Structures are given as structure tokens and as C-alpha cells.
């Protein structure tokens, strides 16, 4: 049974189900409940996160399991690491991924390395949920997409869903995974609706999803950019070009096999990644195929990314900053040497 709910509702539902299933699951972060210790506040008036994603959880699970924290990311993310290592299964919310600057040590040097440094004698079943993405007019310090930084670091898993259905199933997998997972939520997807299964289900981390089949070229797109890819693919279909759209769904581990088999079929690869271009997920996927899929390739691998600049505030500039279906069409036109397809 499915019904249409939003990306943000799907995430909320995953947390609710996880917390019902296992009392060791707790949620902590800034204003995840909201209005802590305000006597007059009705629980349903509590913020439930700066975007309302965690709304209602404090009502059901109480303030012992839904903990508002001070603005102290190193403190509460660090605490989540050992809370996880000593028996809880925390979901820590890092409000914006841009704030990783305040707690990278806890993620990179503690959460990610504990198990290895301790010779396998510890586990860190921690999920860090965090918001990313441009397009919200939130400027340079609240709009980054920093998943490449986390993908670079061994010991972390990096998950990035593009649909409500994936978001719920992947978040449930993340929460019950015994390794630290960074779960990326694009803030501009929260209101996107989609069919979502009821009840508890999981989607495995490390399994890509082919969001559209096609035989002429492969587009690997990350997070929200899956939708850019799908739009472009529809436009291309009108011109008789069938693009396959691969959604990796997790960057670490990366489902190399699905990507490589798609390129084996199509012979062409475009990667769409709205993050900055250097040492990025886009280059990572390109490099994978330039090595292990080289013999399949009929054309250079193209990447469509943000430019090498911070995210500008002004809406006109921010719109230019992001990938668009039109940019994809332009690249495809070059790739197949047919200029006519750009004229939509």
C-alpha cells in the first residue's frame, strides 16, 4: 500500500517507525523538538526542526528521546558517537551540512575511525541527518552540497535520496546500520510529493536505482539532480534519444556495478552533481568509469556541476549556478555532435 506524501513527511515517518521499533533510537539536534523547557508550550506547537521535518516526534517519544541541544555541534555530534558506541542508536541532526565546519573532527577522526583504530572492537551505529543544496536563496554558508568531503573519508557511509520513497527506506536502513551514516536531505525537495509505501521497509545502502531506462547514454545524477536528469531525458526522448538515468542513492559505498553496466550498454556518460566540481562525486564517478569502464566508452565523460565558486545569494546568479535540463541538452548535443537537439 502506498500513498502520496512529501519528502519531508517520508523522512519524519522513517524516524517515527525507527523509534517505535527500537527504544535505543533517539533523536538529537538544535530545535529538533523546539521550545525545550518552555512551560506553556503545547507539544504540537513545538518547532520540530527549523523546517518542521521532525515535527510531532517529541509528542510521541517525549523529551528524553527527542533532545534539543545547545548550538554546540562538536559537543552533541561528538556525544552521539560514543552514545552509539555504548548502546544507543542516535539520529543526530546537523541542521545544515555547512555547519560540518564546527564538528568535522567528531565525524572524521572519531565516528569514522573508532572501529578501525580499535581493531574492530567497537561499532558506531550513528546516523547524521543533514540538509544541503542550493536554490533556496540561502547564500554561501547555507547552500553547500558537501557530500564529497564525507565520501572521501573511509569509515563513513554517505546516503543521498532523491524521492520520498527512497528517502524513507534509505533512512530506515541508515538508522539500523551499524556504521556511521551521513544522510543528506536536499532542502528544496522537502515539499516534493511522491508515492511512499506504508509501514516499515528498507532500501539497501549501496544499491543504485535506475530511475529511467535508456540505451543511448547514461546519466548518473545525484540527489535532486536526478530530477534534472529525468527532465532532460524526457526532452531528449522527444528528439529520439533515450537516456538511462542512474541514481546511485549512496555515494559510499557506491554501486559501481550498476553504473558500469549502464555505460557498457550506452557507451556514453554524463554525471550531474550540483556540488562544486573539484575532487567531487562527479569526478569520482568519472574516474571510476575512465578506469574500469574505459573500453565501453564512445565519447569523453562529461560532468555538469556547479562552477568552482561559493553559492551566490542573488536569485539570478543562483539560478545560473545550478545544473538545468537545458545545460544537459547542450552537453548531449556536443557529445553526439548534433546541435539541433538544444533547440527545444
Amino acid at each position: 500500500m502506498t500513498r502520496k506524501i512529501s519528502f519531508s513527511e517520508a523522512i519524519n515517518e522513517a524516524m517515527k517507525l525507527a523509534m517505535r521499533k527500537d527504544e535505543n533510537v533517539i533523536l538529537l539536534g538544535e530545535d529538533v523538538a523546539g521550545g525545550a523547557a518552555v512551560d506553556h508550550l503545547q507539544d504540537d506547537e513545538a518547532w520540530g526542526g527549523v523546517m518542521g521535518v521532525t515535527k510531532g516526534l517529541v509528542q510521541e517519544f517525549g523529551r528524553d528521546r527527542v533532545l534539543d541541544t545547545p548550538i554546540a555541534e562538536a559537543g552533541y555530534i561528538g556525544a552521539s558517537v560514543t552514545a552509539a558506541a555504548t548502546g544507543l542508536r542516535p539520529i543526530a541532526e546537523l541542521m545544515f551540512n555547512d555547519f560540518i565546519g564546527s564538528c568535522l573532527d567528531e565525524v572524521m577522526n572519531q565516528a569514522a575511525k573508532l572501529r578501525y583504530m580499535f581493531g574492530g572492537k567497537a561499532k558506531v551505529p550513528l546516523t547524521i541527518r543533514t540538509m544541503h543544496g542550493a536554490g533556496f536563496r540561502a547564500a554561501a554558508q547555507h547552500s553547500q552540497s558537501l557530500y564529497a568531503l564525507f565520501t572521501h573519508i573511509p569509515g563513513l557511509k554517505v546516503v543521498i535520496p532523491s524521492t520520498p520513497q527512497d528517502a524513507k527506506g534509505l533512512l530506515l536502513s541508515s538508522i539500523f546500520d551499524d556504521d556511521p551514516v551521513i544522510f543528506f536531505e536536499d532542502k528544496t525537495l522537502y515539499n516534493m510529493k511522491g508515492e511512499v509505501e506504508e509501514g516499515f521497509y528498507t532500501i539497501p545502502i549501496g544499491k543504485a536505482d535506475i530511475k529511467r531506462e535508456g540505451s543511448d547514454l547514461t546519466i548518473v545524477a545525484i540527489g535532486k539532480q536526478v530530477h534534472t536528469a529525468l527532465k532532460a531525458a524526457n526532452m531528449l526522448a522527444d528528439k529520439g534519444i533515450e537516456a538511462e538515468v542512474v541514481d546511485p542513492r549512496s555515494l559510499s559505498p557506491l554501486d559501481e556495478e550498476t553504473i558500469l553496466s549502464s555505460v557498457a550498454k550506452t557507451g556514453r556518460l554524463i554525471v550531474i552533481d550540483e556540488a562544486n566540481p573539484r575532487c567531487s562525486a562527479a569526478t569520482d564517478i568519472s574516474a571510476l568509469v575512465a578506469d574500469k569502464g574505459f573500453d565501453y566508452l564512445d565519447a569523453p565523460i562529461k560532468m555538469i556541476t556547479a562552477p568552482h565558486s561559493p553559492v551566490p545569494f542573488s536569485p539570478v546568479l543562483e539560478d545560473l549556478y545550478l545544473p538545468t535540463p537545458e545545460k544537459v541538452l547542450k552537453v548531449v548535443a556536443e557529445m553526439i555532435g548534433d546541435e539541433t537537439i538544444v533547440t527545444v
Partner: protein
Amino acid sequence: MTVMKPEMKSLTREKAKWMYEKMCEIRQFEDKVHEIFSKGVLPGFVHLYAGEEAVAVGVCAHLDEKDSITSTHRGHGHCIAKGCDLNGMMAEIYGKATGLCKGKGGSMHIADVEKGMLGANGIVGGGFPLAVGAALTAKLKKTGAVAVCFFGDGANNHGTFHEGINLAAIWKLPVIFVAENNGYAEATPFAYASSCKNIADRAIAYNIPGEIVDGKDVVAVYEAAERAILRARNGEGPTLIECKTYRNYGHFEGDAQKYKTAEEKEKHIKEWDAIAKFRRYVLSQQLLTEQELHEIERKVIETVKNAVEFAEQSPFPQAEDLLKDVYVSYQ
């Protein structure tokens, strides 16, 4: 609210006039942004300073352009008090090419380095080390300048509070740390998130003076700032001043503010309003006349109206601006 009794020392007629004007400008500016935002015209996150005017103005009244300030996500008031151009500010909030940051920063990053305004900051706690750096330059280059770090009660629990103040203290740098304790960080009350009763209590941890001030009383702020800045300029190191204040609007535009009570809003917004209080004060002290005040109020309305017009009529940035200013020479 713990309150230090203000004791007039150096408030001249000219200063009082400037202060009243700046407070009115801030209030008018923020009320206007609130109004425009609610029409859905403005992009992004906007955090308004209305209600806290006395803090920025009382402190900045002592500063000139060589002095620096660091600000927060709630930065409009600091900008105005530090002398930023209102047209440029409003245009920035609109994302226009004529904005102080050419539309690239927006409300959360308005800056004017030449005026010593080192930027609003989207990172809570970001300002502590930055103020220390400006003060380090001042000390090493012997400019006689001071740096002021404005920060919220929420920021007071961030690690940078600790690192920044300790650094300033051991190096005896000319920094004034000004807490704007408005009782909330987003929806989280100060008393929940902070283990100290007052932010100023934390000064002991750094062996520096800590002072609690009525942040609705611009004269009290002015006096406390004067003491701290004197200390700083004399090479005696930093001071921590806690201003008890209140934000009249929500955390950001769109906040339903259910965590506030009707009574507290009534008290802070009506009874204890900083501008009304200062107005009564300057009249009672015969520093300014009713007519002068009126004149200022009229002028301010005009100024802000012009700023909105300027912003609305200004052009957006051009496509080629996207990649400018990433580096001094972009590669």
C-alpha cells in the same frame, strides 16, 4: 532582568542625536523589511534586529571607521550602527548589483570592510575568532583600534566563544565581547541551553571583567561600552558585556513564536521599548527637543523609503558576475 544603574558620563547632545537617529533607522528598516518580506518579495532567510537597537547603537556610538565589528545572522542593526549605507544594505537584501556585496551575500552576509563592518555571519559563533583577528592587527600594527564582537545567547555555548575569549584574554587584545541575550536561540530558551545563569558570569573563566547591562537602555549600554573600550584601548584586554534584550519579531521571518508568552511580548515590546525609553530620557535631560526628535523620525522614514526605492529600481547582477571575486585573480 538584572540591571546596572546607568550613570551619565559623556553623552553629548550630538551623540544623543546620532544615537536616536540610528535607533530609529534600525527600527524603521527592520519594520519595513518585515513588511516587504511578508509580501513574498524577498528571497532567503531574514533575521530582524528590531527590539535590540540599544545594543548595537550604544556600543557603536564609541567607534569610528578604524574600529572593527563582527556580527551575526541578525546583522542589520550592527551594520546601520556601524555606518553602513542603507541603500546598499537594502539592495543587498534584494540581491541587487548595487548591494553592499553586489548581491552576492544577502541579508546574512552584509559587510563593509572599509567601514570596519567585517560582515554579518551565517555561522553562529563565527564572529569570536574573527573579532580576535581584527584586534590582533590593531595590536601589532599599533593602530589604537578596537574590535567588537556581537553575539547571541545561543552562540555563547559554541566552542568558539571559549577559544576566542581565551585568546583575546591571554594576548590582552582590544576586544569587547557583547552578548545580545534576547532569551532565545531560535525556539530554545537561554535558560535551557546554557548552564550559566548569566553569560557575564562566564567572564571569570577568562579572568576578565564581565558586566550585565539592561540592553533596552541605550545609555546603560553606552556607559558599559565606554568602560570596556577604554580598557581595551589602554591595553588592558577584553571585556565581556551581557546586554539583556529581546527580539520583537520571530527568529526569522515566518516563525510563529509560540514559545513566547503574551505577557513577555507586551512587556518587552511595549513597556520596555528601547527607543521610547531613550526618547523620554533625552527629553527629560533636555538633550533634545520634541521638535528635533520629530524631525529625526520624519527623516528616517524618508531614508528607509528611499532605500527601498533604490533597491527596487536597482538592476540584478549580470551572468558574468557569477564567477567574479572567488579569487583576487580568478583562475
